[in-house]
């Protein structure tokens, strides 16, 4: 159905997409939002508390100073201290055979309590596979539960890729002058600190999967991410770290509703936006909207590397251009004033530089779009 929905929209593309202004008088709602999983130890449990905001607000309204505790049906109580604004973390002692609930007391004196939930043990990820097509490289999940018991899955990922500046940087403007000089006049090497960088991003969509309709609990080649053809992510080396969570049916349905509500395409074949009713309620006012569904599950993870050599003729091309600049104060003044960064010597007369190259800083200095600190897991 979902593909159908996308399809019809795109089929009819011939039409057009325009901006639609939201009514500016959106009310101040401020409903409590709870995100995160209770993890059985030794994994750290991290819960984030925030408030709903105006539609045009760009910042997150964290909920600070709340008392957050996990209560077991054996009357155990464990508190999660606030380790960062709105973030409550600790390592919990969870018995897989017991049920637990979450209690939150906010600074405005309201008290929230979740339903009791049991512990779900997540099976390990079998593999992350990928296929290459004209569109690019599509990454897929593969997993299975030999107990046929998990059935509902949630994933998130963190991807990292190495990339290089388009042009090596041998030169720099002499400070305070309209002139250039070698960065490393002795060895004549390029500036390595801005040549190789890493960038990363995290999943921003809710990736769900279910094997409920299959005879065994198998997730096979479920696509979750497309790296478009010729994308910079695969220009050198690419890595993705994925985490897998086993969900209950109810938790899955809650997240599925949230996904449909917020990632829908708005076609008339889309479902109506639906109310998000989770398993956390205001103790004194059950009608109050509380967004969140608390689950307890173990987390499984996996990392995958893809090297540029594994995708022959990837043909990544930066849009970078190098311009020739005559080594005179006037032209250097113009180049410097335009924000262009010197790259390398293009023409010399003896040792004198006649022409040198310049390019935009993004093309020369990779730290402008990434970090030059090599991640610990990088080979």
């Amino acid at each position, binding site marked *: 159905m979902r593909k159908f929905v996308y399809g019809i929209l795109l*089929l009819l593309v011939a039409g*057009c997409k325009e901006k639609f202004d939201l009514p500016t008088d959106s009310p101040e709602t401020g409903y409590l939002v709870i995100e995160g999983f209770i993890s059985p130890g030794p994994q750290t449990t991290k819960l984030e508390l925030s408030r709903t905001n105006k539609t045009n607000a760009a910042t997150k309204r964290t909920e600070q100073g709340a008392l957050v505790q996990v209560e077991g049906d054996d009357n155990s109580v464990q508190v999660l201290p606030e380790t960062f604004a709105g973030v409550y973390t600790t390592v919990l002692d969870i018995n897989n055979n017991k049920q637990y609930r979450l209690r939150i007391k906010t600074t405005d004196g309201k008290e929230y309590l979740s339903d009791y939930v049991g512990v779900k043990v997540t099976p390990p990820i079998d593999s992350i596979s990928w296929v290459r097509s004209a569109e690019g490289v599509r990454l897929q999940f593969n997993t299975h539960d030999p107990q046929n018991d998990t059935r509902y899955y949630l994933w998130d990922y963190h991807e990292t890729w190495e990339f290089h500046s388009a042009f090596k940087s041998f030169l720099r403007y002499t400070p305070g002058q309209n002139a250039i000089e070698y960065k490393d006049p002795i060895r004549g090497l390029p500036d390595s600190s801005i040549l190789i960088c890493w960038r990363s991003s995290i999943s921003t969509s809710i990736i769900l999967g279910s094997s409920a309709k299959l005879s065994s609990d198998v997730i096979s080649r479920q696509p979750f991410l497309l790296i478009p053809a010729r994308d910079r992510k695969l220009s050198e080396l690419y890595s993705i770290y994925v985490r897998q969570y086993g969900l209950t049916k109810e938790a899955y349905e809650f997240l599925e509703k949230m996904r449909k509500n917020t990632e829908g*395409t708005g076609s008339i074949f889309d*479902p109506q936006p639906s109310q998000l009713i989770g398993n956390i309620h205001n103790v004194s006012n059950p009608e109050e909207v509380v967004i969140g569904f608390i689950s307890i599950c173990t987390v499984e993870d996996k990392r995958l590397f893809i090297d540029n050599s594994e995708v022959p003729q990837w043909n990544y091309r930066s849009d970078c251009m190098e311009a020739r600049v005559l080594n005179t104060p006037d032209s250097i003044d113009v180049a410097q004033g335009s924000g262009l960064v010197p790259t390398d010597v293009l023409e010399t007369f003896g040792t004198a530089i006649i022409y040198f190259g310049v390019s935009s800083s993004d093309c020369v200095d990779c730290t402008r779009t990434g970090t030059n600190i090599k991640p610990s897991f990088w080979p």
Partner: protein
Amino acid sequence: MKHVSLYVMTIVCLFCTLSSSAQNDPIVLITGEFKNLNIEQFVRQLEQATGDTYYYNPKDFDSLVINFSAKEKPLAEVLATAFANTDYQFAIDESKQVFLTKGRGLKTTLFEGIASGGDAGNDSTQTNRFGNAGYEADKPVQRSSLENKLYEIGDRSLMNVEGTAILDGYLQDGKTGEAIIGASIYIDKLKVNISTDQNGYYTLTLPKGQHTLSIQGMGIKDTRRQVVLHADGKMNIEVQQQIMTLKNVTMSAQKINNIRSAQMGVQKIDIKTIKQVPVVFGEADVLRVVLTLPGVKSVGEASTGLNVRGGAADQNLILFNDATIYNPAHFFGLFSAFNPEIVKDVELYKSSVPAKFGGRLSSVIDITGREGNKKKVTGSAGIGLLTSRFNLEGPLINDKSSFILGGRTTYAKWLLNILPDQYKNSRASFNDFNLHISHEFTKKTTLYVTGYMSNDRFNLNSDTFYSYGNKNISLKLKHFFNNKLNALFTVGYDRYDYNITSESNEITAYKLGFDINQTYLKTHFNYNLSVKHRLEFGLNSIYYKLHPGSYLPVGGKSLVLADTVATEQALESAIYLSDKYNITPELFFDAGVRFSFYNYLGPQTVNTYAPGIPRTETNMLESKSYTGSNFIKTYGGPEIRVSMRYAFSDSFSIKAGYNTQRQYIHSMSNVTSMAPTDIWKLSDPNIKPQFGDQVSLGLYKNFRANTIETSLEVYYKNIKNYLDYKSGAQLIMNDHVETDVFTTRGKAYGVEVMVRKPAGKLNGWISYTYSRTQLKMDDPIAGEVINKGNYYPANYDKPHDVTMIANYRLSHRFSLSLNTTYSTGRPITLPIGSFTYGSSIRTLYGERNAYRIPDYFRTDFSMNIEGNHKVKQWTHNSWTIGVYNLTGRKNPYSVYFLSENGVIKGYKLSIFGSAIPYVNFNIRF
């Protein structure tokens, strides 16, 4: 039998002042003395002498005394002598029939070049006698094709002028023999008004004596017939199609059907009008034109789901020649599934639904196909931007049986090819076929066979293929028991199915299937009790067999767990009776009652739930299995269909109606619009039938000699047990669907104003509708309430709607059409806030349907160019050139929200966001 043979000739004869001359060999010469003879004595003598047959009206000759003698004179000379110096005329035809007339003579041969059946050019009245005392069914029925001729029914010599007599027969197209359905026959003086039935049959009970029948209907020329009724008799009336003639005579005196009929909220559009209305890609589209009528809305441009007077899309009974069409859409809803070449007309009942129809809450859309040409083989073919179509029709046995065959197929691939690269692999195709055969066994018994099939198949750049189709077949037998009672017996089978297959990943390869099958039997009787009472009664029965879903693995490696939701069966039956009761010429009642019964049949497993608390899987008490096809649950009750009309004058009437409806089958869809993958569900012990009632009141006034019709209708409607869906409902492959749905109540009210000019150089209509549709969800078993249990606007609640359809005929071969529509934007649910979850800004939605998308406005334009109108030529060609959305307004089809760079952004998407030109070519042969 002389009377009988005469009528055959009179069909084609025309008056003129020429006296006749034709004589046969050998010439009989007459000798005799004629002294003081009156006409009867004179004719008797001549008959003895010549053996010829004489026709005359004794009354006309009562002052004639004949005095002369003849010796071996030919008949013509004898008559000429006898009538010398009088205004009597005579004519002798080839078969030795002699006609004596007063004033004007009779020409016994045709003028060259005058088409048979023509009714132009004559301006006086001829009288001739035929018919017999009493009515003999198997005798050839007289055919009446002339306006100014006086047709006598029964033997006047009986001189029986007291009491009433029944006149019945068919209204037919004089050229093709096709029945004219739903035409109005009325007698002004008596304020009698009836309509021909679905076979073109009419019956009138009238006082004996002379009457003028006025006849008007869709696609035919308004006409009149003069009759003198002496006894019961039959008369088939042949009328002419409204074809463009070179000398067009505008007849505007009798456009009062809208005033006369008792029915309210009924609109009929013929295919000619449908084809004039400009539509996207130029595909003449039956349902799109229905959408322009007041009270009919849809959620969006790419949707054929109709919302009639606040009803949901599944509350319309869409009938195509008695067959129920469950999905009337092709190609994602852009086109309706009816081939315009096959359709004759479409009738929409949105208020007074006749008792013979039932099973849906809002409306009946009755699409009638054409009957094949009974006289010769003809056909047509058309080429448009998206489809090509053809049809072929003709007699199987001349004048007895005919066929019509039509087909349509698409070549829409080019449309998909203009899409961005990533959609290159999409495919979409559709086709539909129609066949209709009619056969007349005897004058009293006719059989009709109708078949219909449509198929759609598409994939949208994924490995998932969707396909769906309708299949329908029906057999209808029409029989006349006598001139008071006739009946229709119909049996048929309807099927709608769809399936979804995905085979690219062998582990998850599956095929999902859904189908609905119904076998039905309908009997319908028309009984003319008296002048004042005309009864209709009958019995309908539908046996449903529904396969709510099967999910099966494809290929040996698939791990898909075969799952089949239990087959559902039910029997829906109804008996009905209605009476069209003329109390006085002004006051007319059409009262009907329909008792419908519904039985949910086993074998089936039925879940029961704890009462009063939300219906969820955890609150399920037990699952009870029923074996055998016993009745598991029975619903039923009366449905009242009453309407009345009071005519203050010929041009002003007031009508009122009350209607109730019950619906036992529900479409389930948690999307705004109708999608091909919606499922249907039968009422069961957990899902109650829907119930609706409506009161309506209307004022009808005609102006300018009835050439302008105006109407104002007001209605209020209640809907109970309409199904809505819980958030995130799982509808397909769910064997406890009742946990995912809940019932809502609805109310709808509105005013519809329409000004219509049906004929003339400039014709068309303007309508304005104010309407509201609101739903309320306060069902305690739902577990969640929408908008705190208050009334909220339905998705298709568009309060203001103005539509204008205009056609201007510049010449007989060239006309311009303009279609303009404005409506309030559809309600939507807007975000009222945002929050962060899953590393992304997400939207918090406010109350359901609390806001609206921008208003809708569109103008379309088309030119229709006909080839020349010579009747005799090999092919008739026509072109339609037009522009859809002339102003290029970007009407929002949907509004949606995405979070981009941490901020929620709204977008509106329009489908036809620019002017779309089209061209269509049609050829008839």
